[in-house]
């Protein structure tokens, strides 16, 4: 998308801020599920939006800002490590899936959600040297398919509106 540098910077900063808020809000209201660590993954909507509107570099920027700030403000270095590994793997998958015409935003979001969980489980089993933790990925993966498709619908709608908004904004 072509737009002024300032507009782009402001929009990316807004996306990163929204991602940070969403990840904090989510930590306040854990899902009523017997699976610790299960989250809606709403902040991934913002990363995917940045990916759709701009590209993987910009999306990576949003991701890094979000993870860095949330681990500084609400978490720990370890939670930052989890976030960056899961997020980076998710971003790789979502970028790659974007190369296929037959994959919609919903599919990219699902893949991102699943890979996010995979990255975190991999880090957890590596940090604790317990490969058996990977078993935990099974329930997380199926939950991620559900939450990922929901946030995919959200992303699709948000993108539609943002594109329209940015277009009308451009004319002024």
């Amino acid at each position, binding site marked *: 998308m072509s737009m002024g540098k300032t507009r782009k910077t402001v929009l990316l900063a807004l996306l990163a801020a929204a991602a940070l808020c969403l990840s904090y809000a989510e930590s306040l209201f854990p899902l009523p599920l017997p699976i610790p660590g299960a989250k809606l993954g709403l902040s991934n909507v913002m990363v995917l939006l940045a990916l759709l509107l701009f590209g993987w570099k910009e999306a990576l920027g949003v991701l890094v800002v979000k993870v860095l700030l949330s681990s500084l403000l609400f978490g720990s270095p370890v939670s930052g490590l989890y976030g960056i590994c899961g997020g980076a793997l998710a971003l790789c998958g979502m970028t790659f899936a974007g190369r296929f015409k*037959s994959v919609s935003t919903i599919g990219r979001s*699902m893949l991102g959600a699943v890979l996010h969980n*995979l990255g975190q489980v991999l880090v*957890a089993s590596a940090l604790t040297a317990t490969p058996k*933790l990977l078993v935990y*990925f099974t329930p997380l*993966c199926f939950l991620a398919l559900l939450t990922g498709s929901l946030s995919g619908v959200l992303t699709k709608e948000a993108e539609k509106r943002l594109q329209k908004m940015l277009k009308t904004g451009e004319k002024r």
Partner: protein
Amino acid sequence: MKKGDFVILALCAILGLLPLTMLIPGKAAGQTAVVKAAGKVVATLPLNQDGEFVFDENGTNVVIVRDGKVCITEADCPDETCVKMGWVSKAGDTIVCLPHRLTVTIEGGEADSDAVTR
């Protein structure tokens, strides 16, 4: 949802089921080798102590324990199947010498670990 989305769905579901293969009970490393002749226990060898043992119950078998593994290196039975079975170390593994009615069975060993991440 488009066609590619279902491909992703299917791939992710398979990926999600993969770790379940880890739940298939694998054999844990054993702790002792129990030697039986004609059904009676004649020796219990701790696997963490290397050594060479000769059993002369119904014929001669030389059992060697080394690095937590057990093997019959020599036997005067006609087929020497027990020698060919090589080294064993996992719980439940067994070396059998049918002509001498001698068995070496690995026992013990639950190596389950718990960990907490925070």
